[in-house]
């Protein structure tokens, strides 16, 4: 699906991603690492939004050589933050996800309407569909933006901090949704900060530090106390609760 070969991203003269190589295909893949590690830059490079050196192949095609419309149908990108500049209704906003599928001047077809309905239903937004986005809570907005990304119906979903601003129940709900997407064959790459959620819900974790990929593998293998200490500079309790991993950062080293 996604093949990264020695990917380097420079932003404003600084290398923010340094020689990352990985094959990313299927399941929910978590990108973790401290603030400023280069996770978002890597995601944006995969989405083709920032220029990168090295190779980024999406189904064998260079992301930079894909026509814009084609790229938009293959990659759904959920940016960090909740910037929505006009108070569109929930339904109108989710419908933006279908733009890559519409021929010029064409009205949404049945398949588009279905995709919008499904995205609204899966994010439990049907009741809010007529509400302007500026009248929603932060958690509801985050769900609307996720629904917008789901409506694209792309085989690759890139989500940059989809859990920010969500309460624990909605965090779990979003992770459920991402797992559901993965079960439908979508490759989900999500930037996450909560290590317990990352360990519990992701099939695979990529730990990034200082722009480099420092660990890549199953959550339990990646999230060792030693590594968390080295990368985040904190000691952590690593245990289990009900058979699920539990990681609690404790104190600065």
């Amino acid at each position, binding site marked *: 699906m996604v093949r990264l070969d020695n990917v380097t991203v420079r932003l404003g003269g600084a290398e923010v991603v340094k020689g990352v190589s990985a094959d990313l295909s299927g399941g929910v893949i978590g990108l973790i690492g401290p603030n400023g590690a280069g996770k978002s830059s890597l995601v944006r490079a995969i989405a083709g939004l920032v220029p990168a050196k090295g190779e980024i192949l999406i189904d064998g095609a260079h992301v930079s050589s894909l026509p*814009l*419309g084609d790229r938009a149908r293959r990659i*759904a990108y959920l*940016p960090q933050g909740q910037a*929505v*500049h*006009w108070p569109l*209704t929930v339904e109108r906003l989710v419908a933006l996800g279908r733009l890559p599928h519409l021929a010029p001047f064409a009205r949404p077809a049945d398949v588009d309407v279905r995709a919008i309905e499904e995205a609204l239903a899966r994010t439990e937004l049907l009741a809010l569909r007529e509400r302007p986005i500026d009248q929603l809570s932060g958690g509801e907005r985050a769900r609307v933006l996720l629904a917008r990304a789901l409506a694209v119906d792309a085989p690759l979903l890139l989500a940059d901090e989809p859990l920010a601003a969500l309460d624990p129940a909605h965090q779990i709900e979003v992770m459920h949704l991402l797992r559901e997407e993965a079960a439908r064959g979508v490759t989900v790459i999500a930037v996450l900060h909560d290590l317990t959620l990352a360990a519990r819900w992701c099939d695979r974790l990529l730990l990034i530090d200082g722009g480099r990929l420092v660990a890549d593998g199953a959550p339990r293998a990646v999230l060792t106390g030693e590594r968390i200490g080295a990368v985040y500079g904190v000691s952590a309790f690593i245990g289990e609760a009900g058979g699920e991993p539990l990681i609690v950062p404790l104190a600065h080293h």
Partner: protein
Amino acid sequence: MTKLRIPLNLALTLFALSCAALSLGLGPAHLGFGRVLAALVGQGDQVAATIVWQLRLPRALLALLIGAMLGGAGAALQGYLRNPLADPGVLGTSSTAALGGVLALYYGFAAVSQLTLPLFAIGGAIVGLVPLLLLAARSEGPLALILAGVAIATAAGAGISLALNFAPNPFAAVEIMTWLMGSLADRSFVHVWLALPCVAIGLGLILLQGRALDALTLGEEGATALGIDLKRTRLLLLIGTAIGVGGAVAVSGAIGFVGLVVPHLVRPFTDARPSSLLLPSMLGGAALLAAADAVVRIVPTLEEPRLGVITVLLGVPVFLHQLMRARRQW
């Protein structure tokens, strides 16, 4: 809100056409409605026919055209810049168009033919577009464009001040000032044919950007990820606005605030998507300018008040209202 769309556009069209029709009956010479109607269909007396066809009809058509251009450009730029305070003047091209017109007046070219002044103004708009295009080819965000627009508008303003400063006599200065205040008085079909292609190109290019403007609701990266070619959008929008607004300023002088006010007036009746605002803003702009141009002929003053002055007087309260609302959100 979608249900409102067709009635809204219909209502605005009817309003614009009635204002324009009403304005056909207004002028220093008192013509009854019957005579105007007869002249329009080619039946009336010679005097009425001359007044209606050579003075009032071009004026009414220009009000509709220019109003539509200013309203449409305002809506498109507010959508593109994601800033509710943007108007067609924000890119500076209307100022450079005004400077072109002023130069034609200053050097006396305007007296050569009635085409010279508008052509100079269109030339000014195109010259003003050059630095914007150079910048747009490089920069990603809208902020650089806004700042460049401010710089271009300020430079053009300085040029206009210089022309006033060096005006050979008070009459020349007054002529420049009067033209700058904007008016549709004494325009002919020559002006209509001059403005029409500019406005048609301008509005056409703007209407093509609807989807891109909608996608920009999610920001630049969000729009790019949805497959929108932002460079192309920016380029077409700049060219469309510069040509259309340049053509409008060329025949009417500077008419401010229509482009700022109209999108705000119609926005509550739309679903807030920038694309759904384009057509109503064009129709609303046409209606507002046709109405304002009727007002300048109705008010009982010795001299006809300038159209640009009336639209600003109308626009400032709305502008302040919007500022106060925006402040509350900050």
